[in-house]
């Protein structure tokens, strides 16, 4: 691998560390002050945002050095795209921070960015050349704008999440506490994915299967996690490896499903460990962090982020996407699953805006909508790529 790629990797690593430090600094910024000082931007907050900006610059460095090495914008596989998304998330956070000066946003936004980077680095990281369909400037224009829009919309999710953590009554069990825990579990499951993938990778686990694929042809696949579910008519070739408990039909990608199962299970264990150790719901555990938050302001931040993110997303995810599709695939719209899910995301946020503007869905309802919007974005980013294979599936 060339020096440039090496450098680029180091820069990404640096940004990861800086975001981690910045998270702690923002944490310091929102601690209750002894002298009753009003919550606002203090030394910790200033330091936090400075480190965040440095981290962002480092990540930009990663992006451009990798671009220089590959000769094309590094947004062409899952690792590159998700990493870029995390960068846009931090960028959007920085913009919103300068608009509203709220350190608490950093306490939630940066960990999400960290988890995203960690998640991205679980995918193959080699620099790959572009297949003919991707050899277009519209690739970078389209993908970067989409990611920017999604990054801004993610801030709306984070503000909404803070709103919910702040306002949901943790003294009793309710529908709200259940769904809030579901979100927390979702975030923890991503960490579970990182943990379990890394563990088995370090242990060097590999199990090779011969199987029959969707087209009815013989194929082989190497599992890097013990196969709880195995491929269609799979035959385990490697010795001393776990035999699958269940066999999947041909149209399901067993390897990916297996990874999902492992991540959810690991997440489950982690989640309950946290709950048992703290003897609290995760929502209740993080609630002290948002004690000083002005919830109306959070509501506005969440809405503002949608107002900024929606046009950007429309431009990147629909308009630029259509222009490129017209050039690369001869038609601007082809009802490919990824396209459809971009449309769904767009329709969802349109509904969000109408509900808010015309039907008075403010506060908690609006916060839940922001959460659902983010879930749709993540679904498109992860599930559609992994499960529903279309033209866009990177893998």
């Amino acid at each position, binding site marked *: 691998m060339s020096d440039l790629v090496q450098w680029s990797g180091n820069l990404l690593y640096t940004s990861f560390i800086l975001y981690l430090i910045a998270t702690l600094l923002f944490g310091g910024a929102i601690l209750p002050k002894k002298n009753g000082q009003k919550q606002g931007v203090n030394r910790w907050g200033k330091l936090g945002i400075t480190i965040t900006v440095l981290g962002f610059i480092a990540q930009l460095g990663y992006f451009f050095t990798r671009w220089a090495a590959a000769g094309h914008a590094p947004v062409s596989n899952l690792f590159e795209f998700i990493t870029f998304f995390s960068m846009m998330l931090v960028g959007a956070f920085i913009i919103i921070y300068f608009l509203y000066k709220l350190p608490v946003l950093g306490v939630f936004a940066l960990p999400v960015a960290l988890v995203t980077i960690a998640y991205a680095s679980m995918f193959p990281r080699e620099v790959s050349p572009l297949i003919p369909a991707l050899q277009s400037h519209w690739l970078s224009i389209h993908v970067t704008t989409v990611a920017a829009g999604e990054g801004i919309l993610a801030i709306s999710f984070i503000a909404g999440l803070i709103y919910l953590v702040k306002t949901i009554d943790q003294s009793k069990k309710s529908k709200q506490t259940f769904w809030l825990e579901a979100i927390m579990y979702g975030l923890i499951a991503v960490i579970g994915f990182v943990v379990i993938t890394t563990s088995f990778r370090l242990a060097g686990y590999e199990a090779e299967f011969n199987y029959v694929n969707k087209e009815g042809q013989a194929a082989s696949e190497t599992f890097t996690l013990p196969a709880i579910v195995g491929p269609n008519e799979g035959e385990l070739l490697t010795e001393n490896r776990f035999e699958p408990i269940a066999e999947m039909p041909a149209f399901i990608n067993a390897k990916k499903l297996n990874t999902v199962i492992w991540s959810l299970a690991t997440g489950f264990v982690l989640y309950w460990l946290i709950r048992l150790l703290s003897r609290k719901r995760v929502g209740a555990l993080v609630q002290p962090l948002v004690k000083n938050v002005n919830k109306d302001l959070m509501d506005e931040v969440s809405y503002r982020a949608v107002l900024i993110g929606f046009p950007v997303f*429309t431009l990147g995810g629909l308009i630029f996407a259509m222009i490129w599709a017209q050039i690369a695939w001869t038609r601007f719209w082809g009802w490919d699953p990824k396209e459809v899910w971009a449309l769904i995301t767009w329709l969802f946020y349109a509904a969000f805006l109408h509900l808010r503007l015309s039907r008075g869905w403010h506060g908690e309802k609006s916060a839940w909508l922001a959460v659902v919007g983010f879930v749709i974005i993540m679904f498109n980013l992860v599930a559609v790529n992994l499960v529903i294979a279309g033209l866009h599936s990177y893998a």
Partner: protein
Amino acid sequence: MGKVKCECGHVNPHGTVLCESCGRALTEEAKKEKFHDMRYEGSARRSQTYNKTIVDKVWNFFSSVKVGVWLIVLTLIASSLGTIFPQEFYIPNNVTADTYYEDTYGIAGKIYYMLGFHDLYNSIWFIALVASIGVSLVICSLDRVIPLHRALKNQRVARHTTFMKKQRLFASREGTIEPQEIGKVKESLKESRYHIREEDGSLLAEKGRFSRWGPYVNHIGLIIFLIGAMLRSVEGMYVDELLWIREGETLEIPGTDGEYYLKNEQFIMENYDKEKDSEVFSEAIEENGVIAKNYQTDAILYRDENRDLPGAEPELVEVKKEDIRVNEPMKFDQFALYQNGFSQNEMKAMEFMLTNKETQEAVGAVKIDLFNPKDVYDLGNGYKVELLGYYPDYDGIGKDGEPKTKSPVPNNPAFLFNLVSPEHPDGEVAFTAIRQTMEPMGETDYKMEFSNIETRDISALTVRKDLTLWILALGGTIFMIGVIQGSFWAHRRLWIRQVDGKVYVAAHTNKNWHGLQRELDSIIEHTSIPSPEDQQASEQSGKEKN
């Protein structure tokens, strides 16, 4: 219809809630509400005024945002259903939908197919759903934009105190304000780019009114886009053809009415090479095996100059020579030719040696063009090869004892030869197919020995004309302008009034109340004018009934 005259003297259209001019409440309901519903300035909207005839009812239905949101949500859910299994146009060509879904996805697939979800986006109900969004867009916009425009145009500077009190941001105090204080505030308001209007001691500062038109502009954009999408089905607006063209071939380009011809000079396919391409890719190439780099058709475009002369042979004049690649279509007139697919190594010609079996001596070579075989190949000196039968896609011997061909495409050519030599002036019959020879009329002295094969590639080009693109682009652009206009700016107003020894201050914005409050705080700070407070803080704002 009866107009409503306000106490202030302004005549309002029937159905007005808040006087366009002074803001006084005109209905009992509005008089009672704690905060005025300012969304459309309390203007007279048709949907809120009439509800008698069928037209009224349809109008009211489509004008409702509640209905609009339902339509959007239903479209969203419907769209997602279409992604559960691949749509019909993505399943392999060699299978039919009625068996494919069940075979591949089992019972779920069968149900999916039976419900028609395999072609969901072309179904009538889906198109109807999208069309109703279009109708709703038109009606809801008309219902609001005209009255809103009227109300904003007619607004007076001095608003009635009841109107001011019922604004979310409001403050009042006893006393008066020094003129120089007002002057200071006016200065800072101007610095923040407010337009200021004054009328006997009252002040109205306003900015960003144009952002109120944002939603209507973006809805117009959407409508234009939808119209554009519909026009594709109009004859002549849209051409979608596939042209399979072999290397060396010149064919008429379908969809151009015989005006244009294309020659495929050669088709090129390249893969990335570990040695030749940048070394950063070597790892990826090793991982993935083959990675495609380029699909390209070197093409020449011709125009038929004789097109208008009935019955004349085409006279082709070269228009241009271009390489068509993925992402780089060839454009001419209103057409574009896209590299879409290919098929490699189709057999073009086969070469045989007429050979004497005993001496192994070759008498001569025969090259058979598989697309245009000759009946007789004369080798001279009394040697001749007659082609009795040609089976381009040989599929075994039929029941009648005749060889069969599956298609006219030379996938598996076979020949029935009559080999004429000085020894056998009447010829010997031999049947030759790939890896197979037969001598149906008995042992022969000569044979056709395979010596060479010529292949060529076929390129698949999509021929596209789409005259709706500019409409779509226009719609998209207008939409973007509208959304940006509506979401990056906000309409902010500040009213200051002094009546009967009291100072009243009220402010309104259509979004971002914190932003407005912070701006006003900084403008009004250090003056004797009271800074408006949020009277509603965390209360939910009123819902629109319809």
